[in-house]
């Protein structure tokens, strides 16, 4: 089966890329000043040589760098991501505990931005040179130009503080003990602000891309053919222009995956969303090497998986790629 083979090959490639990413990040992190032992000692507000020595020995930081790298890489090969120095838990557990939150946030934001972006973009393309079309584009441009964290802050001030419509932070109401549907609704309510904020910027990108792509597609000969058939503009717009215009958007969306994980760092910080973006920033500050490397590994893996999915979707959407083989 073609797809199976494709996925296998892509995964093999992904393994190589991930391996390189691990090594690069391992080296990068070593360049950072300070080490986890010193930071943990510092947090305790008191320290002595003995304490630092204990910690370093425990974390294996007393070993030569290549030994540490070898240990880490061979650990990864067995899917053992090591222990988080600071949190005292297996890195894998920490990440797996946080990953769903990030997936939920970025996934929702992704779907939201793509759906709304394509909708707004096609509306703008259909209303080119009309005030309503210009308005959509102006809004898209403004969303595009506004710093993400600024929107997030403003959203909290407006919707949580002044209007008190939506919770300002967190993923669910702690202590409310919701289960089942109530829990889902509770999470959904908490998701609204962060997902929307994160989605806005990307929505702006997709809006602009969709419009440009649709205007480009509408210049194509097959659109003229469709008009010559006497098809209604609505049908032409949807079936001929939009479908073709979506192809570059799929590619773009694939490339944006990494950006979105990056954007999640800001969003998760402002909204106290318990995801891996925030965990990454904390791990970096703590020089929690294993955790940081683990997060890099996972987020890169996420990007790669996402790219593979985009590739498959592209293949589904464009018969030419399949057929070319």
């Amino acid at each position, binding site marked *: 089966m073609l797809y199976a083979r494709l996925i296998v*090959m892509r995964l093999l490639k992904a393994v190589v890329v991930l391996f390189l990413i691990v090594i690069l990040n391992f080296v990068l992190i070593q360049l950072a000043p300070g080490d986890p032992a010193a930071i943990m000692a510092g947090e305790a507000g008191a320290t002595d040589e003995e304490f630092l020595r204990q910690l370093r020995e425990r974390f294996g930081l007393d070993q030569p760098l290549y030994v540490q790298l070898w240990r880490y890489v061979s650990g990864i090969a067995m899917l053992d991501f090591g222990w988080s120095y600071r949190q005292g838990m297996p890195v894998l557990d920490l990440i797996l505990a946080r990953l769903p939150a990030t997936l939920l946030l970025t996934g929702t934001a992704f779907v939201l931005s793509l759906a709304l972006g394509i909708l707004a973009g096609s509306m703008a393309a259909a209303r080119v040179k009309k005030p309503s079309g210009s308005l959509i584009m102006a809004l898209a441009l403004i969303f595009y130009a506004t710093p993400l964290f600024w929107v997030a802050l403003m959203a909290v001030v407006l919707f949580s503080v002044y209007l008190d419509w939506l919770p300002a932070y967190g993923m669910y109401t702690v202590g409310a003990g919701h289960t089942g549907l109530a829990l889902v609704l509770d999470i959904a309510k908490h998701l609204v602000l962060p997902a929307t904020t994160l989605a806005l910027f990307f929505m702006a990108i997709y809006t602009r891309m969709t419009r440009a792509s649709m205007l480009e597609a509408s210049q194509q*000969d097959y659109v003229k053919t469709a*008009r*010559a*058939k006497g098809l209604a503009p609505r*049908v032409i717009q949807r079936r001929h222009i939009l*479908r073709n215009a979506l192809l570059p958007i799929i590619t773009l969306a694939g490339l944006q995956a990494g950006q979105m994980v990056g954007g999640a760092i800001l969003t998760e910080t402002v909204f106290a969303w318990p995801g891996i973006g925030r965990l990454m920033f904390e791990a970096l500050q703590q020089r929690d090497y294993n955790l940081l490397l683990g997060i890099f590994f996972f987020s890169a893996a996420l990007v790669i998986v996402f790219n593979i999915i985009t590739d498959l979707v592209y293949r589904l959407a464009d*018969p030419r790629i399949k057929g070319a*083989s």
Partner: protein
Amino acid sequence: MNDTTPVLSIRGLTLALPEGADRDNAVEDVSYNVARGEIMCVVGESGSGKSMAANAVMGLLPKGVRPTAGEVIFNGQDLLTLDEKQHRQLRGLRIGMIFQEPMTALNPLMRVGAQIAEVFEAHGRYHARERQGRALALLEEVGIPQPERAIRAYPFQLSGGQRQRVMIAMALALEPELLIADEPTTALDVTTQAQILELIRNLQRRHGMAVMFITHDFGVVAEIATRVCVMRHGRIVELGTVGEVLDNPQHAYTRALLDAIPSNVVPQARDAERQAPLLEVKHLRKVFRSRGGLFKPAREVRALDDISFTLAPGETVGIVGESGSGKSTLGRCVVRLEHPDSGSILLSGTDYSSLKGNALRRERHRVQMIFQDPYASLNPRHRVGYAIAQGPMANGMPRAQAMRRAEELLELVGLGAVAVDRFPHEFSGGQRQRIGIARALALNPELIVADEAVSALDVSIQAQVLELLDELKHKLSLSLLFITHDLRVAAQICDTIIVMQQGRIVEQGTAPEVFLTPHEAYTRQLLDAIPGRAHEPAIA
């Protein structure tokens, strides 16, 4: 057989161009009728406005172009007064249209059957389930091989000719009274073109439609037209039956156009003094492998399969073939833009095919090329003088001297020395091709390869450029490898003609031999397919 009541009647039509265009009106005061059962050919060179009226009929005028006078009567109705919705009801149902580029005119993401069925859907015909059946019937009618498979195919899986048949099937789906065909065969190979023309002619007879056929090619006109309308600069120059116009053109422009068509009269082959060959090509092979990569099996295309020939100093050898014949690859191998897999190219007895790197770069001046596309062959950011001088400069000539040489060459190709300081975009296509020739001459090459050097030009310009080449050939005793898909053009200028098909040489001989007494079936097929060949004596 002609029913004289016009299906379409264009009267005094003037279409204004948007401000800032190079002229005020796309077409001005144009009137003609298209009657049931006739094929009305609208002929003109690029920029003549020949397609504009058709677009007005369809309601598909480009942005900014608007009618300012006249009317377009279709079945008693002035189409110019219709709104978009009313117009839409006519399109596809009562007026069908096919376009020039079959490669791009079909939606790449939809199956062929669905695209045909859309015509029914647009006009609410048949039940959804029946539509596929109708589509299949149409595909059969337009003669697509294996219609059951074709109906499920995506456009990219079909050849250019097949796609054009699908377009025709779509245009005919609802049996329109009027079919508009806008240069439907221009993008096709000559043999395919002949088949499509045949198809249109047959369908027109069978369905008794009125056909408005737009073309730049008098050969096609001769092949298909009932009546002819010649246009120039947005105005009708001449209008009449095909016989009147072709045999007895009234207007000077029409005559000029007809004269410009390469004729069947083949110049006598010069006696190439049998001296040591300038170019010897021996057993040249080239296989293109698509880098299949991980998922696609690598595909092989034999572009050149054991090609051998010679070219004497001062001789012009024509390489003729359809697309995919390998003729361009041959040319590119000779100039060393491609590297042959095996075989050798000897230039004045020295090996030219095994040179590499700097050694090759230093020898490159010996073989130069004239390219096909006058727009792409000149760097838009370089002044013409520099474009010509850069060759000599790259080979060590001081700048000032190289620029003087450029001026001389521009004089030689008839553009005048003042051209050196101008940019390519200030020139027309024909003028640019002259610049391209000047550039090729700048290094005093031993051999010039001309790859479809006149194919992109209008006939009248084509004739001028061919004339220039011929003149230079004599003046400078150039040796020329002339690559073209057009046998008639080859016959005009070549001493020897080599016919290629699928990477192999099918036939080679002197121009009169090949042209007048071809030995091979494929050569005959090519010759027969030349549009208007039957009419040729009359034209000449």
